[in-house]
């Protein structure tokens, strides 16, 4: 009787074969190969278990996922200093240093790409929130010479120059900058003394060029001019839900201000008149910040009377306003990324990942001051980082924020 030995070492060569009859199918064939693959690394001719599929995040999307598109553009919500050549970089001060840079969130070094002399200075008068703004992987920041500078992580230079005067008043400062599509929008302050202000929102393209005023300017109190929109202060510009939004303190569409209310106004770029979206009646309020993120527009403000007097409110895309947080001291929004928001509430960092439905508190040691209004955050890899003025950089690893760069507090007039 014949004998022999079957040697099968080609399980990865033939694969599943179902066409042949059971006695005609060649050796090495399989009738089933569930969850297998041929290893691409030193595994030719063998067969192995396929790798696993790992859930990217525990947060589910809005429902069954039906389609996906790959967009080969910079992630706009990487905000990012991560967009500057895969590094994070924030300004220190205008005298002693230049800026701090890290590529891993742990090791920080001085960066000299933006010279100290180029860092923005506080304005002599008026509002001094001269913030840098990251958009499309480029940092835009106002310079003391009146120009808007740009920095892509390697090179810096003049981007454009805002109009030198508005209604006869000289340029003072760029209050804030936002971007949408191929356009930058900036809230610009003009002032000649401590009580005469004008604010206007301007647009210019990402490639520079002429600045174009958007809608009416705001004349602040005591610059009485009938027929001109007035406001006591304009404190914040954001782009959200295809509109530009500002928060102002007391406004009247045509002439002297008749109230001290806190008012949220919006325009669709190209429109000529601001539209009132919300008015908070108060005898005198302190404005905070307006910030758009994901499906939510946030405002923080303080009222002169009533309890609670310090509030964080949100607006849905459907136009519904609600208060999501109250406090004994002024609440300062720090950073919004999508529906994730960080605020500084009486020196405690609070985070919401569900559009303000609930907040998780994080106590930092040493505690940041109540006025430590870090204005920016950024993402590097999968970690969120917050920058708190006079405190440093805080890494939020999803569990507990960790201090990573507190030895280098930001000075007054810092870039961020």
């Amino acid at each position: 009787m014949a004998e022999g030995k079957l040697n099968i070492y080609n399980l990865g060569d033939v694969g599943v074969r179902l066409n042949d009859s059971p006695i005609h199918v060649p050796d090495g064939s399989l009738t089933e190969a569930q969850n297998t693959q041929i290893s691409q690394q030193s595994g030719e001719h063998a067969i192995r278990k396929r790798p696993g599929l790992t859930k990217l995040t525990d947060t589910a999307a809005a429902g069954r996922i039906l389609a996906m598109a790959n967009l080969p553009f910079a992630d706009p919500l990487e905000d990012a200093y991560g967009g500057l050549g895969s590094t994070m970089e924030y300004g220190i001060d205008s005298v002693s240093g230049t800026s701090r840079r890290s590529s891993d969130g742990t090791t920080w070094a001085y960066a000299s790409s933006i010279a100290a002399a180029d860092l923005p200075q506080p304005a002599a008068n008026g509002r001094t929130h001269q913030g840098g703004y990251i958009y499309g992987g480029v940092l835009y920041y106002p310079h003391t010479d009146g120009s808007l500078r740009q920095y892509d992580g390697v090179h810096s230079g003049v981007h454009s120059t805002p109009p030198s005067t508005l209604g006869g008043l000289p340029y003072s400062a760029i209050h804030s900058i936002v971007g949408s599509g191929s356009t930058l929008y900036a809230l610009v302050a003009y002032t000649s003394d401590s009580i005469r202000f004008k604010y206007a929102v301007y647009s210019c393209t990402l490639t520079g060029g002429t600045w174009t005023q958007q809608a009416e300017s705001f004349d602040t109190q005591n610059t009485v001019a009938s027929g001109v929109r007035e406001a006591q202060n304009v404190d914040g510009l954001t782009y959200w839900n295809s509109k530009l939004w500002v928060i102002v303190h007391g406004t009247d569409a045509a002439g002297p201000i008749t109230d001290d209310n806190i008012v949220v106004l919006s325009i669709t770029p190209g429109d000529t008149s601001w539209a009132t979206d919300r008015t908070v009646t108060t005898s005198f309020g302190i404005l905070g910040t307006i910030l758009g993120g994901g499906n939510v527009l946030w405002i923080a403000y303080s009222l002169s009377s009533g309890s609670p007097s310090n509030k964080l409110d949100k607006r849905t895309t459907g136009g519904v306003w609600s208060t999501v947080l109250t406090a004994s001291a002024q609440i300062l929004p720090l950073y919004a990324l999508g529906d994730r928001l960080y605020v500084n509430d009486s020196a405690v960092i609070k985070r919401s990942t569900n559009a303000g439905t609930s907040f998780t508190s994080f106590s930092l040691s040493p505690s940041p001051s109540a006025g430590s209004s870090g204005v920016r955050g950024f993402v590097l890899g999968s970690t969120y980082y917050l920058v708190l003025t006079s405190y440093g950089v805080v890494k939020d690893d999803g569990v507990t924020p960790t201090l990573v760069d507190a030895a280098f507090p930001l000075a007054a007039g810092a870039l961020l």
Partner: protein
Amino acid sequence: MPFYLIHAGTALQKASVNGTLTTLSLPSGVTVSTSYPARFATLNREVVVANATSRNIVVSPIDLSTRLLSIDGPGASVPSLSATGTGVLTGEYRYKVTFLIMSGSTVLTESPFSSVAGPVTTASQQVSLTSIPTSGTSGVNARRIYRTTNGGTDYFLLTTISDNSTTSYTDNTSDYDLALLPTADDLGNPPGSDATDRFRLLVSWKDRLWGSPAVNPDRVYYSENRKLWAWSATNFLTVKPVGEDQIGVTAFMVRRDDLLVGKKRALWMIRGTPPDTIQDIQIYEGPGPVSQEAAIVIQNVAYYLGEDGVYEVSGTGVSRISDEAVHPWFTTDTYFNRKLFSAAFARWNPASNTLEIHLAAAGSSSIDRWVSYDLRRKIWLGPHKTDAFTPSMAGLMENGLGILATVLGSTAGNLYRESATSFNDDATAVALSITTKNFGMNTPDIQKFYGELSVITRVQSGGTLTITPTVGGLDASAGSAISHDMTLGRERLRRLGAGRFAKLQFTNSASNQDVEIYGFELPYHELGRR
């Protein structure tokens, strides 16, 4: 890092490479359907979304803002014309008006033309235009006026009014100056601009968008060059046969310089450049793609699921690559629910260089299985499954190293990416099951005794591989299982016993357990004919 747009439930969301999700705000009145998958097409650094959205919309990848792709035009509202003063115009002139949304000098969208205003007759005069229509559409911030030359029928851009309020304009532009400009593109709103129709399919190809609508499903419309808002009503091709089913065009596949257009039982190719050299050619008479999601181009070769198998379209023509080995997967009801072939979807797995096609198991109403085709070795593996979730979508996503990795979406709304280190589907073990052929040693009529099986596997730090032999006739039952210690690498196991055939099943469902089988040896001797 790039990012991703996903259609999830009734929302469009942005997903970062680490899975962070952000819901996009949609233009007022626009809703997202759960019945139709979104179609995405990128042109001019903007993303057009159709099919799932109640209107075609545009997403800016720079800030995730959204807007309608199209806006209504002035329609029959046209300027009043009168000859006036002294000027350079002599003859007969006609005008049209459009509405625009612009960002700086960039046109975001332009409406269809108004009806024709005029003619107005002049003799060395100017033309006064009054009552120029304004738009009630939010965001319109410019208008354009177009004009003919004397007695002409082509329209040229006369001027752009950079507001939505000015209602008068005086024209004193000579025919010579006007005709230095190119003739105006044919403007128009595409299907999906209102609720009467939608683009079922949409793709970007040769600097234009190409779409097939629901109302005329045998047609393929195309936009003007790099103008995603300009769709002339006459810019379409008809893919035959016409009107023979309600499905029409089933899939687009961009392959090199061609746009492949599938129908259920034919495959066409569009070549050339509109308007002069564009043509559609039938390249295959036979089963075409049944699902846009199961039609994919990998390295210059198109693959699609047809009603009777998987097809390959390469430089050598169209062929059915499932014929030789796994034809029964696609032509019987034993393995898959063929009614759900139209819901199948495909992906390329760069790590294993495989085409993977997701299907519903026989009797299942979910897309809960997939098969893979090794593109280099040209062999099939599967059917595969996961016990962790039900896949609902497949695609590619960069990992933290910027390298493409296969990704699946689930019916529960989660994204899963293939791991480089884990053998679990999230927290659930991957269940390996390999079944060999029936080995008859070329003597299927002879009874044999199968001796001690030896197995050689990759040495692991732990774990066992379960081997279940079946020895006997072709209808024999499985025998008792054998356990192979994978820390040994090679192990000699028990005798398998007597029978005409022997086959082996290798299984492992241990958590995070790697398994790699190099081969096995099985001694035998013939017992004779029984």
